[in-house]
C-alpha cells in the first residue's frame, strides 16, 4: 500500500506540500468546474467531448456531493470556518461532510481535538450551528 507509512490524514500528517496547498471543498470545485464547462459550451458544439474523463467524473461527483449550491453560501462557509483556526484540510472535510453533532465532527476530523489546540466542545458546537444557519438560509 502507500509508500509513506507516516501519512495519516486523521492526525493531519499529509505531507508538507499538501498542507500548504490549498484544499477545496466539493461545493467550491463544483462552482469552478461548472464555470469551466459553461465556457467550453460557448466555444464548442460538443463540450462533453472536449473535457477529459477525469473532469467529467469529478463534475458529476461534486454536483452530487455539494452541501451548498449558492455561490454566496459557498463563500460564507469558507469565511465562517476560517474563523476557527483550522488547517485547510480540516476546514474542507467539515465543509464537505457537514457533521450535525460535536461527537460526529470529532469523529470526522479527529485532529481538531489533539492536545494544544483550542477547540473545546463549545467552540465546535458554535461552528456547527453557524454552518447549519447558512444551509437554512440558502
Amino acid at each position, binding site marked *: 500500500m502507500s509508500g509513506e507509512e507516516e501519512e495519516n*490524514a486523521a492526525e493531519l500528517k499529509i505531507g508538507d506540500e499538501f498542507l500548504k496547498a490549498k*484544499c*477545496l471543498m466539493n461545493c467550491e470545485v463544483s462552482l469552478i468546474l461548472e464555470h469551466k464547462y459553461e465556457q467550453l459550451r460557448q466555444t464548442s458544439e460538443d463540450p462533453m467531448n472536449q473535457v477529459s474523463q*477525469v473532469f467529467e*467524473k469529478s463534475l458529476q*461527483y461534486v454536483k452530487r456531493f455539494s452541501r451548498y449550491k449558492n455561490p454566496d453560501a459557498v463563500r460564507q462557509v469558507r469565511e465562517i470556518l476560517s474563523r476557527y483556526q483550522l488547517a485547510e484540510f480540516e476546514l474542507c472535510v467539515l465543509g464537505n*461532510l457537514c457533521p450535525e453533532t460535536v461527537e460526529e465532527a470529532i*469523529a470526522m476530523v479527529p485532529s481538531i481535538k489533539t492536545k494544544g489546540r483550542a477547540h473545546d466542545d463549545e467552540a465546535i458546537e458554535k461552528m456547527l450551528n453557524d454552518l447549519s444557519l447558512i444551509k437554512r438560509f440558502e
Partner: protein
Amino acid sequence: MFLKVQLPWNVVIPAENLDAKGLMLQKAIVIRLMDEFATKKATKDLGYFLAVTTLDKVGEGKVRQNTGDVMFPVVFSGITFKLYRGEILEGVVHKVLKHGVLLRCGPVENIYLSSLKMPDYQHMPGENPLFLNDKSSKIEKDVVVRFIVIGTKWLEADREFQALVSLDGDYLGPIA
C-alpha cells in the same frame, strides 16, 4: 480531497499554432496543457488532474532546432484530486461483489470496501446482490457510503489509484 495547486511546466507549441497576437498564444498554451492532462490523467505525487484554472506565468520561449516548435516554461494553477490515508469521504457503490463492494469517489473508480472491513454486514446473493446488517442497513448499488481510507496504491500501467477503505469507526456506513 480536491486541491488547488500551482505547478511549473514545459509546454511545447507547434510552429503552426504560433501567432503574432499574444492572446492566441495564451489560449494555445492552455489547450496544450489540458490535452497533456487528458492523456496523463494522474501522477503518483499529485493525484488526478482535473482542470487548469489560470496561467500565472509564461517564460521566454525557446525554439527547437529541428521542428521549429517553441517550448515555453510556464507556471499555472489547477485542480487535482488525491486520496489520503485516514481521510473520511463519501462515495457511491457501483459494483457489489461476493467479498466486498467497489465504490466511486471523485475521479477514482477503484475504491474497495472488503467484507472484512464491514464485519457486521452479510452478503446477500441474488439478482441484485447486496450487503445487509442486523439493523437492516443496506449496502447495494447506487447507495452512498461514508468510509475511511486505509490505504492507497498507485498503478503506473493504468495511471490510476486504487484505495482500500473501511467502515471501522464512528459515523461511517451507508447514508440514507
